[in-house]
């Protein structure tokens, strides 16, 4: 089946305006007749919930943490892109569009990316109006910095806490609507199933994490804003509670999952230190504005980094990519770090690290300036490693950070289940096979503040959405299914913990579907995952009961879903017989070890349809046509 993305006709610059005009409107008095359910309250969810409530819709927002302010968007550090061209360095909507399509290795939908670039400028306006304290220069104007994959400075930032400040802005807007009674905010709720009635998404089943009660929520439309699936690797920069359950359960109810193999390995994270490590910590890409990446020229050099003279250092990014230098895109930088370590040039106790060195920048601009720009990041590094990055080079290594894949959506952000919209990292979105730095915040907020308020209205105004209450048979069926899954997990009473299974799964996926992937490795993975899943249901130990605050049960449910999802991830990686962006199949590379795309056979989105347990999922395609950007071998030399 070929998927219809419903891309508006006409020139790319006019598509969004034309589409907004063509969409039917819901008149102000009628908006209050519609209930909208927003699952997840990070950047995408909070901005959507607030904006829709401002328009007059009745919004119910479910939040997995104890407050929307804790969503993992808060951990985004470096910044948010916008085509403002304030620095007068040649930026434009067109250039941001072009950089994003190229950065995504030509695997994103042109029309979506263009819209993203267009609304990027409105996002900055909105956030400034909310009081987000972006960095400013002495004249009082907004400051910008550079991020990977771009040769202009278009990134707005609030120290190393940009995600935090943007999220608190959206959280403020959401809080204002809670106060007005337009948003019902429910904290510590986890969505465990989607309810589909007559082919349309009409609600969810959620678990109240405090008392364990299973609850039903009905609405005219459901928005999933539940983030990515990076924790399938166990070790990632994601927060502990980030999970795939909401999107996976929606997938099982009919939403196609697109490009799950597009996972982003971020080049600059603090390396793994020990066996019991629970997460990896990102060091913002913005550090590559001033930090220089290097390894010793001599293999296995054990000298302290400061004792290695310049002539014996290999600043390999500057050497291999002179025009972008340390600011090559993430996929390129990560692979280069892996290559250096694989060849024996790695540093530190595990030899799985490279240096990110501020020595030259400290000499050039002084410690005060560096502290002002990156202070909290360098402190964070110091806390974790017990090493002072003002004195010794940081050690960094790539780590799983973001997932470009997600539920397939059309131009309206609607999935293959009518009435189910997917926003932010949870959708397969605008980043193609590799996301550029500072673009995740942009996309989450674009979806929530500016896209969904228009497109949701179009769906609702088209009509045909009959009244459905939580007493519908479909709600009972979904609730029974959730209860059965909870009981099944509690009934195993095995000897191994969920954490042990999660760690095993993560190691398998990282080894065979991480930075380098091969046909043989993926086939091995496709055998190993079902075996591990089988063991899980025989040996897992989940103590306590369902009707209580039970973190072990929460985790077991999430890992159970990862054990299903991982198989689709591996299958997608196997079937995409090319390398592109974050998906690097070792069989498909250029003589210089760069990703080699196969545009003839793979210039498409792969969207997977769930066919039932034990049955092979069906792979559908959405062909990608490039009318505005010329497909070339990506080069950052």
């Amino acid at each position, binding site marked *: 089946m070929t998927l219809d993305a419903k891309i508006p006709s006409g020139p790319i610059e006019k598509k969004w305006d034309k589409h907004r005009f063509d969409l039917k409107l819901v008149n102000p008095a009628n908006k209050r007749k519609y209930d909208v359910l927003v699952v997840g309250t990070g950047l995408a969810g909070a*901005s959507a919930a607030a*904006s829709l409530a*401002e328009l007059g819709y009745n919004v119910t927002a479910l939040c997995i*943490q*104890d*407050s929307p*302010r*804790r969503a*993992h968007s*808060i*951990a985004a550090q470096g910044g948010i892109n916008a085509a*403002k061209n*304030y620095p007068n360095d040649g930026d434009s909507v067109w250039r941001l569009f072009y950089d994003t399509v190229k950065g995504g290795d030509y695997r994103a939908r042109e029309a979506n990316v263009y819209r993203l670039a267009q609304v990027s400028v*409105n996002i*900055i*306006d*909105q956030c*400034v*109006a*909310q*009081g987000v*304290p972006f960095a*400013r*220069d*002495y*004249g*009082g104007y*907004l400051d910008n910095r550079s991020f990977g994959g771009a040769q202009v400075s278009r990134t707005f930032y609030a120290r190393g*806490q940009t995600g935090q*400040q943007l999220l608190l802005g959206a*959280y*403020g*807007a959401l*809080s*204002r609507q809670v106060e007005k009674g337009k948003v019902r*905010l429910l*904290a510590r709720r986890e969505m465990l199933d989607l309810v589909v009635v007559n082919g349309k998404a009409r609600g969810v089943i959620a678990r109240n994490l*405090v008392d364990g009660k299973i609850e039903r929520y009905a609405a005219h439309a459901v928005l999933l804003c539940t983030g990515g699936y990076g924790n399938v690797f166990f070790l990632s920069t994601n*927060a*502990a509670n980030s999970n795939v359950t909401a999107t996976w359960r929606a997938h099982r109810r009919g939403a196609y999952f697109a490009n799950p193999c597009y996972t982003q390995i971020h080049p600059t994270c603090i390396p793994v*230190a*020990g066996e*019991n*490590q*629970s*997460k990896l*910590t990102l060091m913002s890409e913005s550090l590559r504005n001033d930090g220089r990446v290097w390894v010793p020229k001599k293999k296995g050099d054990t000298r302290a980094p400061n004792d290695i003279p310049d002539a014996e250092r290999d600043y390999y990014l500057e050497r291999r990519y002179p025009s972008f230098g340390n600011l090559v895109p993430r996929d390129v930088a990560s692979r280069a770090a892996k290559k250096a370590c694989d060849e024996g040039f790695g540093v530190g106790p595990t030899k799985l690290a490279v240096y990110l060195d501020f020595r030259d920048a400290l000499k050039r601009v002084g410690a005060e300036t560096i502290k002002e720009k990156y202070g909290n990041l360098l402190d*964070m590094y110091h*806390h*974790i490693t*017990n090493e002072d990055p003002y004195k010794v080079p940081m050690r960094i290594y790539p780590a799983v950070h973001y997932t470009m894949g997600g539920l397939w959506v059309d131009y309206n952000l609607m999935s293959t289940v009518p009435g189910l919209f997917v926003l932010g990292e949870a959708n397969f979105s605008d980043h193609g096979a590799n996301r550029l730095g500072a673009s995740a915040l942009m996309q989450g907020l674009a979806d929530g*503040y500016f896209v969904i308020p228009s497109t949701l209205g179009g769906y609702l105004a088209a009509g045909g959405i009959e009244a459905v209450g939580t007493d519908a048979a479909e709600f009972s069926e979904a609730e029974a299914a959730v209860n059965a899954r909870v009981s099944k997990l509690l009934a195993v009473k095995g000897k191994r*913990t969920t954490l*042990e299974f999660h760690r095993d799964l993560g190691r398998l996926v990282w080894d065979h579907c991480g930075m380098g992937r091969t046909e043989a490795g993926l086939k091995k993975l496709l055998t190993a995952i079902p075996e591990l899943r089988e063991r899980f249901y025989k040996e897992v*130990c989940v*103590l306590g009961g369902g009707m*209580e*605050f039970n*973190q*072990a049960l929460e985790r077991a449910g999430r890992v159970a879903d990862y054990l299903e999802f991982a198989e689709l991830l591996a299958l997608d990686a196997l079937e995409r017989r090319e390398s592109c962006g974050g998906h690097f199949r070792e069989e498909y590379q250029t003589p210089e070890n760069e990703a080699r795309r196969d545009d003839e056979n793979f210039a498409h989105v792969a969207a997977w349809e769930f066919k039932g347990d034990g049955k092979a999922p069906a792979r559908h395609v959405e062909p990608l046509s490039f009318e505005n950007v010329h497909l070339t071998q990506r080069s950052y030399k």
Partner: protein
Amino acid sequence: MTGTIDITLKVWRQKDAASAGGFETYEAKGVSTEMSFLEMLDVVNEDLQKKGRDPIAFDHDCREGICGMCSLVIDGRAHGPDGGQTTCQLHMRRYKNNDVITVEPFRAKAFPLVRDLVVDRCSFDSIMQAGGYVSVSTGQAPDASVLLIPKHKADSAMDAAACIGCGACVAACPNASAMLFVAAKVSQLAQLPQGGPERERRVLNMMAAHDEAGFGACSNEYECEAVCPKDISVSHIARLNREYLRALALGPGEHQAASGAG
């Protein structure tokens, strides 16, 4: 540099708000000093589960000091011994062999206990809902460059805005006051022109919500600043007090304030 230590933990266990709670003692042997404090608790929990005992419930999420989800009073101090960091940033290298460590939840009337070390901090949300924002709807904003904000004001607003809403200030305060939390938001917006139109309403409403939630008054103990993981200064409480008095004098909405407070 790396090594292992044996420690004894005294941990507050309480099934739910209605049940009685008490300390239980656990021996943790061979704890790697490279581990974070929460990773040490993970290991203890693994061990407990292997023995068929319920793991210790504790809140955590990002594990890099920004989400504000983790809490814990460790040896009598919110977020542990060092100050300027969250519990998730505390590492076991801070401890010595045979140390005894007491771990308790954040205790305050406005933070009812959920289980073990987990408390409900929704009262912070209700304070924010009362006015911790600029009332601007999506689409209303003018171009971002229209508004000029002196660098020192933007920086000072950012110092306040760094609050992660963890509640350590409340846990540390003998009065369980949340004045530092309220001050962080009031001070951020009072220093920015965007906050001007609602300047009086905001502080009055947020303080009313603060008192209504059951938080106590500030008596200048400065314990909040000492434990704040983001080093938010009590000078913001001084600004909050000035803003409050000013708003009382002017009345809510009576005065369309110009940008910037004293």
